[in-house]
């Protein structure tokens, strides 16, 4: 009886929740009342180790808060207590069944055997080399034999498609896309090409392998970071190409254009219909993938930001290109629904932020102001209606620094977090004013906010900041 009541509460809570994903609705502007301050020991509701790092931001799904873990694991915790509720792996072999799974496992096993044999030969090769240096008479013949066998193994390894997710390496890793939720299910995308949906109790709703990641990305060279978006029963998946999957079955509803972007699509509702805006400046209808508008922008590694019916594109490039261009262009387009489910785009303004370094993070728009933060900790503020650029504010308490986490506005404050986890809170305005610098552990993820809590994916943990939460 008690278990049934708990389950009912769980389902009811999730049913009331709104779609959410990277930066909440994608804008980084949250309706929440976060704490004004915290320290390493004060104001921490809970801190739960997850086992490894991830660049993905946490996402609140009803009574759960979910996060990714390198390389391909999704973990969901009780949002109130931080207790782990379930975790699910997403290697390719984890998401298929039957003969396909057996074939993948057999191939993975064969690769393990080949690699073990190659490792043994490497050891023998090293020993033979040392013997050759000492003048052993048979060393040359042995080295030739070992070389030939190693060449054969290497050729077979290179010719065998590897279904295993390699170990984590590099900055982007395999789990940078932030999970999404429609309030009922939790959707996860990983850079090994696996996309999956899980019920709140952890049961898998569907899982698919979408293929290898794009070999050519704009602005950087490794991995994949774009996050999925779910609207109107369609999971919009930016991987390889933009796709719309049925959020209940995972079947492909539509396939769109190639996706070489690290940035994510941003959702915008027009005429009562859901759309997404892409970094390439396209407006795509979620229901059928139709491209209704294109050519609005040319972004490389950032995401467009939507506020109301206006979409902002920060066309950041490399530091060198920013300096040679004299800054970074920022465009504002107003989107209008037209008759017959069409859309019209109107350019409101274009301006150039005269920055001398680039941006690794998407801006945030709140209360008529757009705030963009360079990777070195300079806040640029722009009037969202007119494009007028305000004087920049340098975050001296962070310098020297690198900022990968996109800024947020919540509870009337602007939050900027650097890769060391130092979080500056500012009062937003034409000239944001720093209020405090608060500590977190190292992170490249953006903060998530819900009610009185801030959720931070830092180091190998998920942390909830704010008052200790009472168990419902």
């Amino acid at each position: 009886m008690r278990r049934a009541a708990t389950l009912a509460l769980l389902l009811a809570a999730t049913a009331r929740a709104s779609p959410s994903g990277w930066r909440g609705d994608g804008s980084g502007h949250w309706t929440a009342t976060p704490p004004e301050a915290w320290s390493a020991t004060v104001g921490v509701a809970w801190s739960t180790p997850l086992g490894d790092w991830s660049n993905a931001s946490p996402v609140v799904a009803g009574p759960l808060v979910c996060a990714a873990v390198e390389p391909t694991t999704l973990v969901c915790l009780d949002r109130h207590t931080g207790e782990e509720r379930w975790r699910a792996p997403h290697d390719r072999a984890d998401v298929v069944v039957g003969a396909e799974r057996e074939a993948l496992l057999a191939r993975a096993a064969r690769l393990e055997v080949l690699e073990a044999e190659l490792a043994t030969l490497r050891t023998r090769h090293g020993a033979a080399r040392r013997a050759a240096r000492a003048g052993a008479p048979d060393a040359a013949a042995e080295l030739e034999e070992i070389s030939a066998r190693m060449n054969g193994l290497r050729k077979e390894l290179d010719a065998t498609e590897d279904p295993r997710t390699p170990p984590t390496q590099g900055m982007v890793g395999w789990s940078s896309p932030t999970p999404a939720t429609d309030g009922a299910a939790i959707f996860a995308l990983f850079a090994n090409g696996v996309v999956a949906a899980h019920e709140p109790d952890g049961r898998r709703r569907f899982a698919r392998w979408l293929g290898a990641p794009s070999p050519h990305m704009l602005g950087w060279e490794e991995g994949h970071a774009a996050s999925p978006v779910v609207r109107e029963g369609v999971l919009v998946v930016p991987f390889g190409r933009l796709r719309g999957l049925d959020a209940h079955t995972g079947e492909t509803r539509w396939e769109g254009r190639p996706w070489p972007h690290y940035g994510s699509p941003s959702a915008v509702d027009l005429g009562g219909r859901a759309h997404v805006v892409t970094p390439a400046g396209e407006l795509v209808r979620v229901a059928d993938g139709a491209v209704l508008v294109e050519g609005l922008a040319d972004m490389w590694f950032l995401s467009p930001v939507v506020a109301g019916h206006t979409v902002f594109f920060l066309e950041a490039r490399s530091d060198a290109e920013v300096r040679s261009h004299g800054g970074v262009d920022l465009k504002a387009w107003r989107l209008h629904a037209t008759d017959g489910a069409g859309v019209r785009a109107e350019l409101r303004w274009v301006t150039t932020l005269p920055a001398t370094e680039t941006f690794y993070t998407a801006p945030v728009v709140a209360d008529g102001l757009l705030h963009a933060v360079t990777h070195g900790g300079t806040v640029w503020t722009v009037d969202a209606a007119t494009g007028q650029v305000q004087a920049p504010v340098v975050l001296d308490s962070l310098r020297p620094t690198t900022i990968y986490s996109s800024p947020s506005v919540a509870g009337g404050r602007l939050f900027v977090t650097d890769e060391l986890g130092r979080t500056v809170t500012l009062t937003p305005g034409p000239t944001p004013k720093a209020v405090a610098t608060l500590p977190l552990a190292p992170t490249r993820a953006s903060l998530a906010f819900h009610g009185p809590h801030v959720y931070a994916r830092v180091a190998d943990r998920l942390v909830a900041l704010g008052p200790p939460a009472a168990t419902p």
Partner: protein
Amino acid sequence: MPASLRARLPEILAVLAVCGIAWRLWPHAEEGPPAQHRCTDPHRADACFLRLEGGRFLQGAQALDPTAPGHDPDALPEEGPPRTVEVGPFWLQQTEATVGQYRACVRAGACSEDEVETGGGYATYRPVTAPDDGDGDAMPVNSLTWRGASDLCAWLGGRLPTETEWEFAARGVAGRRWPWGDQAWCPVPPDTRSRPGQRSGDDQACDQDGPVRATNLPNPTPERVLGMAGNLWEWTADAWAPADGAPPPSSPAGPHRTQRGGGWTATHPREVRGTVRGGMDPTTRLHDVGVRCAAGGAG
């Protein structure tokens, strides 16, 4: 001709003859490789030839006496005894010779595909019947015999380096332990090393999965010679003589030849120090062996 000059003619001719002989004998670095093979920008990682000034240095190392010159606690007997040598100016390829260079040599008829492994796997060379591939052609050519290395160097307008020249380029007048200095680094950065399943299982400090391009070798000598530590053992011109005084080994193709630098299967920085050397049958085609050509100088 004035009588006084005529009287001194024998002396004048003798002086001119001596000067001419001296000119022939003196090492001329300017006789180096053809102009098209000389480096124009030393900051590019290229298999072009760099001019090295030469100098005096202590070649070799010993591990027996910490107070004696050339002490290196990791030195093996064949690395000694240390001795002071003088090296004249000469030219050396900035990087190991490439697949593209060997293919061009084969097409020119000056090199043979019989002297190089073409079977793939860790062997980098692709036969000339295979399509051109910029990335593949930039790889260092490996699995070639001493004869193949010699022929390639000759076609490039050079020759194999002597051991002394090779070690001077790697260690300089200062006698660096490694080409970049005295820090015990692995030759390639961590993100180009092998995957866990391909590691040796021994000391995993420097696991590398096959040879890499020069652009993946980040620590050059002060003169900007790249990749002298690890990646590929490099053939030299010298015959190999064991340190214990045993008769030098040889094969039907001739004496064993010395290789320098260590290769990609090395598992620790000590295995790729500038004094590391080994002898090898000249007919072997091993995937951890390549070549870096020299030119000009005394040879």
